[in-house]
């Protein structure tokens, strides 16, 4: 197999933002054990739509852990709309590249992010609908 870049190794050795967020504003859960990777991405969003915190839990290889760590780092401080544009290629690039056989890990990270954002939008829409109904 191709070797991992030093950036991947850095994020694998010292992953940023490991864990769960209590009362998250959005959660993305992707993957399954048969394909080998499972990622859970949690986001906390303030009232200006800015992601103030992101955390992950990942069952997977070195690349899966590194891409999870990188994607959380990349989205913290971004608005939800900006974060939505973070692609798997951007994550891969930020990691200094990934071996070909590991590209699916970056796709998984992107999917986890998109799902967390979708979840956030769903929740805020529900909240808004509830408020609208009450008023």
């Amino acid at each position, binding site marked *: 197999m191709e070797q991992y870049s030093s950036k991947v190794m850095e994020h694998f*050795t010292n992953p940023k933002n490991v864990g769960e967020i209590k009362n998250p504003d959005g959660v993305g*859960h992707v993957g399954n*054990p048969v394909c*080998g990777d499972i990622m859970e991405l949690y986001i906390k969003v303030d009232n200006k739509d800015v992601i103030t915190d992101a955390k992950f*839990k990942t*069952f997977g290889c*070195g690349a899966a*852990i590194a891409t999870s760590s990188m994607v959380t780092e990349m989205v913290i401080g971004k608005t939800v709309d900006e974060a939505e544009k973070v692609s798997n290629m951007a994550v891969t690039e930020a990691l200094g590249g990934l071996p070909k056989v590991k590209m699916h890990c970056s796709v998984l990270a992107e999917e986890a992010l998109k799902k967390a954002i979708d979840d956030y939008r769903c929740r805020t829409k529900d909240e808004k609908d509830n408020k609208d109904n009450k008023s």
Partner: protein
Amino acid sequence: MKVYLDNNATTPVSDEVKKEMIFAIDIYGNPSSLHQFGVEARNIVEKARRRVAETLGCDGQEIIFTSGGTESDNLAVRGYLKTTSKKHIITSATEHHAVYNIFNELEKEGYRVTRIGVDKNGTVDINQLKEELTEDTAIVSIMLANNETGTVQPVGEIVSAVKSMFPHIIVHTDAVQALGKLKFSVKELGVDLLSVSAHKINGPKGIGALYIKKGVRIKHLVSGGHHEKNVRPGTENVAGIAGFGCAAEIAVSKIDEVNDILEKLKLKLIKGVKEKIKNIKINSDAEKTLSNTVNISFNNVEGESIIMMLDMDGIAVSTGSACTSGSLEPSHVLKAMGVDPVAAQGSIRFSMGKYTTEEEIDYLLEKLPPVIERLRKMSPLERQ
């Protein structure tokens, strides 16, 4: 500290082997040449052939040198099929890729392939095998010891069963992982064809052998000269062959001594892991397993991450098989044994060798628990 626990992938070359190889490198004559330079090289090749034959319990005439286990397996299966019109072939579900993929390819080429299943310890189902044998069966290829789990297959019983029903069926065994770890002879096993390799027994890479029982016909797979009884053309790898001869002799002469030590270390490793780490599964508790191999699933964490973290501590282990690294598929061996997918993803193979020490196992037992704990903290499958 550097700890090498990946001896089923390959082993370090021993000093004795190196010495004989360095000597042989200077004997540059072509073993096929008639002059004294050639004769000198021929003598080295034939001495090694006798040594390898002795370790397998056969005649030197029955040994063909190849480039290693994979070539021996290909030569055995494909080389035999070239001599027969029969179209049914049998193997097991847990073969090394060197055999597994030959059968996958033969299937695409039109052969009818039967893959015999295994029980939860990886032992092949002899009853199923008996039921599958037919008049049209050409060859049965079942490994002697599994590279991932160390499970030893009842090859002797398999040969008896096959030959009592259909004497014409040829039986091949890949004994690459068994050589030097398991006491056996080709006569006892009764096999027709048997593959071995040097680099798993502290010999050099790129050299192996195929035992071809007297009277069994094999056709060459590549065309060329008359080397190795017309079965395997190409000028012999003299230094490699010398190294193989030496390594085989040492491995078999010290087999009891080394196995006694490895058996103790294996018990220590298993006991230590069980005591220090929860939620694990020992893969293969077969009655007969190799003394050097332990395969353990660490539930809820993934194997590659474990390898990478242990590597940072200087410890080398592997997932199921080195050939699996880099592929996304979980081990076909564990899958066939019915190990659940999460446990299969978190499986690690510890394979010791004759240079493994108790201190090294202590070091592993010190470094492994925090690695698993750290990865489990990251795992969404681990719920507090």
